């Protein structure tokens, strides 16, 4: 009799399928390996104010960007604090065909710079089952100025195409700490092929910080700062520092901000920002980003 009871109870206790009938017990039976899940939207778009963020575009997404910077605040009331005269505008088209590598081309009115870049999302931060605490993105670009009749010491500055070129290489490491706060470190290097003076250096190394604080689902306050590590010129240049506001609406992101940098390309704003916050040498600016999805009708299997 004992043997029967023992064996019966052994069987019943081992057959979890016999007794586990509540929904939660059933859920526990699904033996799924923890799936790697990637973080979503560390930043709302690929740029914060001027600086690049770790974000790349989604698959088959085309981004049309307009960036505008007004003149300096300290040009006074007569100039409507920079609204009159001296604006810098960049128009660009940026595209990602796959998931990690995107490219873009743009043209800036200031110094007539055409730029082309590649941006690669190397590592994506994971939420669970992945163990990657940060996103890492790499960036490389080339800048070509089309300016004519630039005379230095009586001679044409640009005598050949390489004279007109500059480059920038960046590594960005960012983390979305929670749904409200993200922070990114940028390490950048700008190389200018031809500098104005013999005493000038061709390279500038920058460590930057980029952060955003989202205070509603679609609005955020943004901040960026680029600290230059080396001295490369006897002229007075300043670190780029900007504060901004992001508003996201459907397919657009509107960004409005104050920054001391007039330039819209990395070589200009990292290396040659020549106005400072200290005497209100800052300007109002805005970026508009409109993303189009080029994927056709969603075809099922």
């Amino acid at each position, binding site marked *: 009799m004992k*043997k*029967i009871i023992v*064996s*019966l109870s052994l*069987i*019943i206790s081992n*057959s979890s*399928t*016999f007794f*586990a*009938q*509540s*929904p*939660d017990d*059933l*859920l526990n*039976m*699904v033996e*799924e390996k923890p*799936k790697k*899940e990637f973080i*979503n*939207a560390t930043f709302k778009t690929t740029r914060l104010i001027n600086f690049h963020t770790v974000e790349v*575009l*989604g*698959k*088959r*997404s085309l981004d049309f960007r307009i960036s505008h910077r007004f003149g300096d605040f300290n040009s006074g009331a007569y100039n409507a604090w920079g609204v009159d005269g001296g604006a810098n505008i960049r128009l660009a088209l940026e595209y990602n065909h796959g998931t990690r590598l995107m490219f873009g081309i743009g043209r800036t009115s200031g110094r007539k710079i055409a730029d082309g870049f590649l941006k690669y999302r190397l590592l994506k931060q994971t*939420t669970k089952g992945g163990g990657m605490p940060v996103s890492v993105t790499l960036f490389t670009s080339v800048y070509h100025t089309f300016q004519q009749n630039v005379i230095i010491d009586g001679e044409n500055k640009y005598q050949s195409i390489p004279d007109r070129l500059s480059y920038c290489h960046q590594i960005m490491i960012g983390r979305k700490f*929670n*749904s409200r706060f993200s922070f990114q470190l940028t390490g950048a290097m700008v190389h200018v092929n031809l500098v104005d003076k013999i005493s000038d250096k061709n390279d500038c190394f920058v460590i930057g910080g980029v952060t955003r604080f989202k205070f509603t*689902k*679609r609005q955020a306050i943004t901040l960026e700062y680029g600290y230059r590590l080396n001295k490369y010129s006897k002229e007075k240049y300043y670190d780029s520092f900007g504060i901004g506001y992001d508003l*996201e*609406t*459907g*397919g657009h992101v509107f960004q409005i901000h104050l920054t001391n940098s007039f330039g819209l390309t990395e070589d200009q704003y990292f290396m040659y920002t020549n106005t400072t916050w200290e005497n209100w040498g800052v300007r109002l600016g805005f970026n508009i980003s409109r*993303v189009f*999805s080029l*994927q*056709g*009708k*969603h075809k*099922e299997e």
Partner: protein
Amino acid sequence: MKKVLAVTLLGLGLTGFSQVYIGKKSKITFFSEAKMENIDATNTVAQPVFSAANGVFVAQVQHSAFVFKSPLMQEHYNENYMESEKFPFATFKGKVKETVDYTKDGVYNVNMEGTLDIHGVSLPRTISGTITVKSGTIILDSKFDVKVSEHNIKVPTLYVEKIAEIIKVTFHTEMEPKK
């Protein structure tokens, strides 16, 4: 000895009837039809679980696994509407009201009474569907509606013409006995 053997076999036989089925092949879609835009998305990774012994059914659907035709739509769905970081799953826990013999092949119309939890709001729902039993596989098909506002999902006035008030969901899963 004979008695022990008999009881053992009986015990094993009992477990044979209390079958748990897992849906390894599933397709869940939702469709929003609005004046300015239609939005649809598909989730094929969900694995619903069903107990044939008492008709208890659970489906846990991960929001971030829904595939949209536009990655930006997918980002907004998770970031702005579902807040997937706070509420990663939509879950239905229910029980089939009718008594069905799951060992017999056939098509049965059923009603599942339970709770539907989306975006942190759990609502009691009775969802109707069809169960098809075919050579040991239980196939569940269902079509039901979800009212966006009932689950505390906020749609700003700017997008009212882009997102429907009532989302149409289709649910299809093919469940095999758990081995």
